[in-house]
């Protein structure tokens, strides 16, 4: 991976709501389904990556305390946005051990909104976005 891409990936960022103007423009959806006041981090193994619109979904198998495995789902931004800012569909791959920080779902289902993920080599992936939205 080039250092440029690494730098881009390492930039911190915001998944924010989109309202580029004084008019409507909320982007695809609001954050109502997520608890935006909470932040959790889990560690697990990437099971599958949906590099799809309107959002990417990263599925991670997490071993719970009781020994059972739960698959968490993390919603990221659109691949359109991410591919212009250093991500590729292979940035996270099945089998990678990762830790993911996320805004949990309000209904308690396993998963939430992807905030950042740390790869086995220590690289950190974020949803780069300034004033942009999901």
């Amino acid at each position, binding site marked *: 991976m080039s250092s440029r891409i690494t730098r881009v990936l390492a930039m911190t960022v*915001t998944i924010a*709501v989109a309202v*580029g103007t*004084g008019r409507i423009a*909320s*982007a695809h959806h609001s954050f109502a389904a997520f608890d935006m006041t909470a932040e959790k981090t889990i560690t697990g193994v990437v099971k*599958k990556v949906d590099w799809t619109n309107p959002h990417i979904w990263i599925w991670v198998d997490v071993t719970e305390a009781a020994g059972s495995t739960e698959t968490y789902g993390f919603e990221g931004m659109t*691949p*359109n946005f991410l591919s212009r800012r250093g991500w590729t569909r292979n940035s996270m791959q099945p089998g990678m051990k990762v830790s993911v920080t996320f805004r949990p779902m309000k209904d308690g289902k396993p998963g939430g909104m992807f905030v950042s993920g740390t790869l086995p080599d220590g690289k950190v992936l974020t949803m780069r976005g300034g*004033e942009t939205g999901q």
Partner: protein
Amino acid sequence: MTSTQRRVGASLIAVVTASASWTIVGAQEWKAKAPTAADWAALAKLPDFTGVWEAATVGRGGGAATAPARGAGAPAAPRAGGAGRAGGPPRGPQLTPAYAEKKRALEARRAEDSETANCLPPGMPGIMGQPYPYEFLLTPGKVTIVGEAYMQVRHIYTDGRPMPTDPDPTFHGTSIGRWEGDALVVETAAFSDTTMMDRNTPHSDKMRIVERFRLTGPDLMTIETTVTDPEALAAPWTTTRTLARHRDWTTREYICEENNRNYVDAQGKAGIDLKDSPGEKKEQR
């Protein structure tokens, strides 16, 4: 054929004839001329709008490291670039009392999201306020704007045709443009009543939108948008947005229904659907 049958038949013919002529007048009253080589060459004299553009504020970072906490269903982020940002006119549309009441009624539903969560595009003017790119295509007598979000297309006719007399209401309305010096001025009318002028803010069938597109730098475009609506607005509502050009970008596919797990239900409740996900337990089906 009896005389009654003849009378009924004649009436039917009259009705069909009348509706057919109404349709012709309303929908397709202009025949574009075939472009000539000179028409194609003339495009080179117009301001160069070609390429892929995105709001200049998107993706620059500079915010918090993570999304700020927000209340349920409050996609109201900082409004950058609006005309009201630096002490100008107030932000947002100034509504007439009747439409202010409509807005209050809609807000009382406390919907957590809008239909865009279900992949329904917002229509105008919202489609021009997306945090996604736009590509401008110039061909003789026409400017086409491809909006990446929801893969939307706006057709702007610049061949001198007038606004149709009674266009059908649509999400993007009917757009007629003209070049005024270096500015493309676009007037748009006839909007679907399922779309909103702004969040929780309906429009009447008299809404008109005038946009002024102008290059303000080698790779910068400013769009000044003025919405008027004699029933809904107490004053014209003007906003300004700046787009930056990215010559190294292409417009990408955006099929919202490809894998949309977000939704808002009829009661306005937003949620996430994990069905058919790799983690779904069979008993949850």
